[in-house]
């Protein structure tokens, strides 16, 4: 129940850059994610703000290559 709202709230971060990118992602991609995609997104949301932002801004490599498909969507939005 209310998974969309919950996810949307967990996109509220300490860094403005992430707030904006994650909000766009929620508006465009979230509803189309399958179960694997949802799990990847959840894992990414649990990363510290700076790590997640550096991965999105291509300054840091993703350690778990399974996360690449959703991360790619975040990098290109």
């Amino acid at each position, binding site marked *: 129940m209310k998974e969309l709202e919950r996810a949307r*709230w967990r996109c509220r*971060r*300490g*860094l403005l*850059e992430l*707030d*904006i990118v994650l909000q766009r992602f929620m508006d465009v991609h979230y509803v189309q994610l399958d179960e694997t995609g949802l799990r990847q997104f959840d894992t990414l949301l649990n990363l*510290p703000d700076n790590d997640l932002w550096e991965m999105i*801004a291509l300054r840091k490599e993703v350690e778990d290559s399974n996360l690449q498909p959703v991360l790619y969507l975040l990098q290109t939005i």
Partner: protein
Amino acid sequence: MGGGAGVIARRKFDAVIVGAGGAGMRAALQLSEAGLKVAVLSKVFPTRSHTVAAQGGIAAALGNVTEDNWHWHMYDTVKGSDYLGDQDAIEFMCRQASEVVYELEHFGMPFDRLENGKIYQRPFGGQSQNFGGAQATRSCAAADRTGHAMLHTLYQRNVRANTQFFIEWMGLDLIRDEDGDVSGITALDMETGEVMVLQARATLFATGGGARIFSASTNAFINTGDGLGMAARGGIPLEDMEFWQFHPTGVYGVGVLISEAVRGEGGYLLNKDGERFMERYAPHAKDLASRDVVSRALTTEIKEGRGCGRDADHLLLKLDHLGADVIKMRLPGIREIAMKFAHADPIHEPIPVAPTAHYMMGGIPTNFYGQVVAPYKTGPEEVVQGFYAVGECACVSVHGGNRLGTNSLLDILVFGRAAGNQIIEDLKKNTHHKPLPADSIDKALARLTRLDGQKSGESVAQVGDTLRKTMQMHCGVFRFADMLKQGVVKVDELAERAKHTEIRDKSRVFNTARVEALELDNLVEVAVATMISAEARTESRGAHARDDFPKRDDDKWLKHTLYFSEGRRLDYKPVRLKPLTVESFPPKARTY
């Protein structure tokens, strides 16, 4: 139904802290380690607080790289504040800086090191040796992740000390009794949508800033000034709300910061006529003039109709003449931000920019023990029993009219700890919880009941957007008498409109629409306080710059503003010019 069923759950703690950024967690740690029962509420997971965005470091005169002295740091801070800072509080902060930094080191903070093992320090703007002499090297940092490292360090220590975290909870309103004493808060558990009373012998606000009142802001979405809203509705004045620090260049429309490095590398600003307008405002320094000068020039261009775009409300930052190689090599981060947030590749096209709000110098008035002080009984700075505030939401005031870089992380450490110590002392005297007043939850419930029942109202997003645009246009980085006057009328109307917003989702469980409506109430309090305080202050001081009164006026305005939400009334109190042990720094012209 915001819990209107009659029975509201109640929990008792020794101390309740609202906000789990650096300030809240530093205070919580002091209390939990003293064996007190502490609850910390946060809208988001603690390590995702906005403290994470602080990169510059922590100012402390350790003297590890160049000779340094807390008294020099004090001088810089007083001068930076444009003499509006309270000199007793500034002395207190600068004297304690080394101690709180070493303490944080012992907590496990991964500071950068010198070869000799001491904490590495780097120079930062506004830091001087010998009272305005050579550049000082005073900032202690953990790479460009100082805030991040601080949050993680403090969170781990708090977990170990059994601090109880209430995550995804939002404070609603302050509970004050007939004596004016604070005995806790009402709060919303977002997961269940239930309202709860958190009763406490000490209530501490550490809710951070509220720069989301502006349409261009570097602040994260969570920075909606919740503590200020609660305090204002609870009858506590807000101090010096006209003072907001801006950066001249944020990405238009989103506020993300474009660092000064762009102009340092040769980028320059253009208006809609393609004119390099900074040549008119600063013939020598041009685009490299100080932040204040550049910000004012941008605002003046927009006000005089030379802004770009449909709404003529931004300027352009041109870099393409630098060439693709220079941009890729020296400004890769900036290019990334421009492409992502402005959809403009600076190799080919200019970046649309506007001044962006960054830090709130004003806030809930406190003394340097973190106790909230207000003129509500006999004196101008009477302690409000049971109520404390620290960090950006508080106005001690150590930043006065303008904050120096790296003094904000120092502020949260020094006053987080000081408030913790003061609460420990105060609770030795106040051994029992005061009985809750009969109407303690009415205010919070009334707001929720109104939202539940409201039909055919405006959307929260619509009112919020108009509010942010109004603040940006009428009360931005450079202020004009006519715009401020109109602004006062406009925010008044917006405050009324905010009382009639409608949310479609009336359910309880994880109702984010409701949370956003409650946040809007807080933004409105912050915005109205800012506009009214700014309109009244007929001088320019620190970050408050007026077109019609370009000079500082110490005869009339060397005083703190106090704004009262009830009746939208202003009062003033003197600046504390007398330090604790040293000679006062008398006001003089501020030049860099």
